[in-house]
């Protein structure tokens, strides 16, 4: 999966960070790091 495909699946305005019962959208910096980590994990599963 590419970062572009990942971002299409999970647009920045659709993913939330939850703290107890409060949710907020990610900052640009948080979203960029989250995409990078998610793509890496999907492309490197345990086998």
């Amino acid at each position, binding site marked *: 999966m590419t970062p572009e495909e990942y971002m299409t699946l*999970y647009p920045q305005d*659709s993913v939330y*960070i*939850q703290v*107890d019962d409060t949710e907020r959208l990610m900052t640009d910096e948080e979203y960029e790091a989250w995409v990078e980590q998610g793509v890496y994990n999907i492309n490197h599963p*345990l086998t």
Partner: protein
Amino acid sequence: MAIPTLPTFSAGEILTSSVMNDVSTLGNYQGLFHIKTQTVGSGVSSVTVTGAFSSDFENYLIVDSGGTSSVDGPYRLTFGASAAFYYWALIYASFLGGAVNNSAGNAQASWDFAGGSATRNGLIEVNNPFLATNTEIRSRVRYGTVYGNNVGIHAVSSSFTSFTLTAGAGTMTGGTIRVYGYRKSL
């Protein structure tokens, strides 16, 4: 110690001290004490649970159940704002057979195999997160064909009151995270 058996009470019944002492005994010797239940929202990348750890308990069980993940993979655990010094040895195999494998974590930024699967589940045992000493962790993980047990430590001698579960990829929706404390010996 004999474990008391309580009768069924009737309306208007006078409760004697003997009966009430049995109630106290049963309450005091319960092994797990429910601390907090946190409902997971929809499409969240992470869930932080505050007020989970305190001086009331030294050892905890975190139970995550009833939710889903958009990606059939593992999720991660972190304590407070600490993003360093997580060490683990994950031993895993496939239900299809083959070799037993491992994944080692050496001073990582998170505890990477806290639970998992598309039908999200997790049972995480934690020793001493509130004490200013290393925290020991044990969790199991299952997703895809991977079935494993993960043991290790968070080698940071600080006190933590909260933890965060973060999807390894994708998002989490629904379900509950329950935190229990193991009662100390009376």
